[in-house]
């Protein structure tokens, strides 16, 4: 599950807002964990970075399109994309105008 959100440099959260945000994420992730489906709590990504282009140029920032920035990810185990999408419901990224992208991890058992 990839979380997309738009960074807002002017956002100065108050202690209460930080607390609410942290709690919302914890509750959501715990909900998945409680079902035994949180495979990996993943990582939160910063908003700084560089992008290397095919022609060798390097630009600042992760992407030209800020809305597409991946802010973090987790790995869940589910029987199907549909089930994983269900788990993605209620993700706090959605309440801040962000997006949740649910993708399958390719598994090749026979190898």
């Amino acid at each position, binding site marked *: 599950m990839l979380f997309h959100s738009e960074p807002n440099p002017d956002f*100065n959260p*108050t*202690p209460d807002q*930080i607390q609410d945000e942290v709690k*919302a994420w914890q509750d959501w992730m715990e909900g998945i964990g409680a079902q035994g489906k949180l495979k990996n709590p993943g990582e*939160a990504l910063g908003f700084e970075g560089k992008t290397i282009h095919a022609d060798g140029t390097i630009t600042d920032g992760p992407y030209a399109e800020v809305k597409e920035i991946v802010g973090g990810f987790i790995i869940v185990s589910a029987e199907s994309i549909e089930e994983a999408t269900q788990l993605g419901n209620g993700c706090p990224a959605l309440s801040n105008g962000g997006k949740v992208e649910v993708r399958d991890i390719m598994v090749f058992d026979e190898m």
Partner: protein
Amino acid sequence: MDDEQLSEIFKSEYSNLIAVLSNYYGLTDLQLAEDIVSDTFLKAMKSWSHKGIPKFPKAWLRKVAQNLLNEHYRRKKIYDEKITPEIRAKNHQINFIEITDKIIEDSQLQMIFVLCDPDLNRESQLCLALRILCGFSIEEIARALLSNKETVNKKIYRAKKIIKERDQIEMNLTSDQYISRLDNVLRVIYLLFNEGYYSSVDEENIRYEICWEAMRLSLFLSEQKKFPKQKIYALIALMCFHASRIDARTSGENGDLLYQEQDKRKWNSALIQKGMKYLKLSAAGDIVSKYHLEAAIAYWHTRDNDGKWNNILQLYNKLLTIEYSPIIAMNRTYALAQTNSIVEAIQEALKLELKNNPHYFCLLAELYRMNNNIEKEIEYLNVAIEFANKKNEKELIKHRLEKANRLKT
């Protein structure tokens, strides 16, 4: 870790980190210190959301703030060397700092004294103290001071500018300067407390948090070796006595209860005990400050024996000779009514002519009520309600008006 603690941690670490960073940098960069702390908090929000709250959240925040500061320095160094070698500072030493409790304590103390600059006006001092010393957000300050975000921002901006224009020297106050500034620092803490205690913000949390913050700051000061303690102790005693009545005061259904309406059993006896302890401590030595007198008045208010009001009246008389204020004179008339005569009290009160002050008209109404003059009581309550601009206050007066009208018919 429960939720309550988390926002508390951010609040206290805000002021701790700002104090350390700006102490290290010099106050010219108060803004930079604030930026670094904001950045740290944003990082915490993201990381903790994902990875859970670390085992030692304070240490985590300090470490990250430290790293951000060091990072800033590294960049600044590159910038100075590559882009502006000609204006490179001669003495360019990077001292990476380790944020420890000791450093925090020293920096906070220094911060309190620098921010309580006697040249700043009352409102700016309050805003700045709430923001930098108590870690309140701009929104919270605006709500607490019944103002709006823009105004608070402007006040803080201007105050910071004034402080910035001061010389670096300010950061290294001598012990004499510390002592001579102590009075102003105590005044700011006293203002903070009063703002929390008397201002009727709809949200009680904010209101009383300010009271506790004021008490925290003065307790912190009392633990420092640098100063004479008597006034600090007296101020703590005063705040303890007042704070002991907070629960009783807010227990009314129709807004705050007046002193004489409160259920004494709801007074917090632990705080009263604490107040008495500090009042005793404050009596060592021969200083009698206005805090001593006000603390003694507040002490007598918690008692119920004979001679109570006479003592209060004497203390008010003394207080007026130290610092005349029409508000104190106004409060004195109530003691006068309790000891001498109500008619005399009314005469004295009428002399004051505190225009536009709702409390003044409420007091007049109360004195007339005591004198069984319902007509006048209603008249003054009606004037009081005109000038009351806080919701709680209006409710309270309305309630009294209804009561008086019922009695009249």
